[in-house]
């Protein structure tokens, strides 16, 4: 299946080829899930968004136009779904929310994950929404500036500005950790 172009794979997946569908899911599901998780900070919600993204993909595949890579298209859909969910949540102040426990983790894993969250993940999660999107797609998922800008529906220049601001904020907030990394 690896020798097929993405368009061939999409055409086969649309016609019901299980191997092509599985390859498409295996290649793109982790990216979509990670992007959704960074936005929503909740595993179950990130999984819901991932599933919904692929359901939309199954509907879109028969009329697929190869304007963008599948991953770019999927991230665009996932980001829109995340924004909808975040918009619905906004009236509730973060301070009012009870501390969430991920029941999928064992206690020691949860403790360890909380310690890690105090570092990188918490700082990424605290970034403004659009900066988080830009950093997630470009710096963490390795999309090109053109792909990321397309997924976010912004200009490349605007993307750069968001990225620079995100990195500046992280540098300021994590100066202690970064000083250790520089040594």
């Amino acid at each position, binding site marked *: 299946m690896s020798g097929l172009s993405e368009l061939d794979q999409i055409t086969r*997946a*649309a*016609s*019901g*080829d*299980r191997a092509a*569908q*599985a390859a498409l*899911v*295996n290649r793109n*599901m*982790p990216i979509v*899930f*990670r992007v959704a*998780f*960074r936005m929503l900070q909740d*595993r179950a919600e*990130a*999984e819901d968004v*991932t*599933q919904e993204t*692929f*359901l939309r993909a*199954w509907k879109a*595949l*028969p009329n697929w136009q190869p304007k963008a890579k599948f991953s770019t298209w999927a991230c665009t859909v996932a980001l829109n779904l995340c924004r909808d969910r975040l918009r619905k949540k906004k009236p509730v102040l973060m301070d009012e929310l009870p501390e969430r426990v*991920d029941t*999928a*983790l064992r206690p020691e894993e949860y403790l360890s*994950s909380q310690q*890690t969250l105090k*570092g*990188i*993940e918490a700082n*990424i999660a605290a970034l403004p929404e659009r900066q988080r999107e830009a*950093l997630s797609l*470009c*710096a*963490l998922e*390795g999309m*090109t*500036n*053109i792909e990321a800008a397309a997924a976010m529906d912004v200009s*490349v220049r605007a993307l*750069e*500005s968001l*990225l*620079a601001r995100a*990195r*500046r904020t*992280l*540098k300021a907030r*994590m100066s202690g*950790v*970064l*000083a250790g*990394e*520089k040594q």
Partner: protein
Amino acid sequence: MTREKITIERALELIEAYGAEPGGWPEDERAAASALIEAEPNVFAEVLSEAHALDAVLMNEMLPEPSVDLAASILARAPVAAPERKNILGRLSSVLFPKGVRWPAGAALASLLMGLVGGYAYAASDVGYDQADAVYYAAFGVDSDESWLSLE
């Protein structure tokens, strides 16, 4: 189009936005920015060092894995292949054998059909009784009706 030259300010912007790794910079500016940084190492040393440190921290991001059932539940709702269009033999087969061809039943039906066709062909042919009898006697290892009678 690849840029041949780039300003110091632009190279600094690239590092601030995309980090210290040239692989993350826009493709059309990568070569020019790398060349400028190589030519002016002192100008970029501090900003590159800071960007490297942040890149390293970002690489250590830890995220949970999606549950093992997620891929299966996504695939369960994927489009199913349309049934193939059958040719005339396929359609006849599905009329005769709506639950699919079963070979013992198929073989019995085939032998029945062969018997019917053979019998009809033989009855229709202009073979006289003598010739038919000769075939019959030959089948039983006797030469004629006389020798058949002599067995009695």
